[in-house]
């Protein structure tokens, strides 16, 4: 699995397509999953990460650099989302961070 992480609207989707093209993998054949915040209940992050890691490409929108939310549920979701991204990066063969449409390899 290849993980593309980056802020909202940073161009992760386009970067992943460019990656697929450069590596000669037809986009239509790839299993791509977009993760924004925390998908579903944050109880079992390991299981969620295992499931997501079965994709070829995961696009992860970073949500942790704003103010801590006042709402407890939102706070926990944000915490879980950040933790999930770490677990995804551990499972990924390659990790790219996308900023202003440009991908930089972190792993």
């Amino acid at each position: 699995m290849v993980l593309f992480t980056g802020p909202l609207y940073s161009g992760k989707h386009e970067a992943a397509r460019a990656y697929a093209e450069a590596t000669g993998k037809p986009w239509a054949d790839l299993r791509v999953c977009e993760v924004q915040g925390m998908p579903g209940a944050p109880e079992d992050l390991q299981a969620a990460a295992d499931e997501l890691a079965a994709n070829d490409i995961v696009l992860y929108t970073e949500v942790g650099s704003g103010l801590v939310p006042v709402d407890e549920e939102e706070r926990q979701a944000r915490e879980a989302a950040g933790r999930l991204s770490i677990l995804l990066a551990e499972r990924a063969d390659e990790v790219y961070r996308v900023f202003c449409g440009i991908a930089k390899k972190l792993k």
Partner: protein
Amino acid sequence: MTTLVAGGAASGKSEYAERLVEAAYAAADRRSPLWYIATMAAPDDESRERIRKHRDRRAGKGYETVECPDGDALAAFAARLTSGAEEDLPVILLDDFGNLVANELFAPDRVEAALHPMNDEQVARFVQPLVETLKTIHRLAGTLVLVSNDVFGDGPSDDPGVDNYMRCLAALDRSVAAFADNVCEVAAGLPDYYKGGLS
């Protein structure tokens, strides 16, 4: 040579951008014009105070300030630039995209439309004239440094006006990053390059 410098609030992005243009200006023996494109509108005391601080920091360094709070003013500035010998090419700093996009998107005669969700095509149409103007400046400047604001760290917003703003700003960032020679993110005053690289 064009550099896009992006970063969060108070990350030191302006200071770093100023260092880049001042180094280019010094390298040209201070013979080239040194333009500072200011984008902030000054409707209240807080913004006037911010402007004063930035002005004080630039004082005595040779900057000529030109106020371009919106796309029309920026296009008028670009139209004044002419091609010339390498050593006479202007050194230009624009600070910042966040203000430019806000002023352009929420101008009194357009604000109504900016509060309804925009589709990708509307975002592209909004950004296109700004990108064209910046490309013109990019071609005619010796050194161009553009400052942008990373306002995306909180994730998505339910407010359509805020979401439109983030989408337009991000689209401008991506379009400019595509033709810029260098792109960096500044944190704690230090640059991390995603494209090209300057010290």
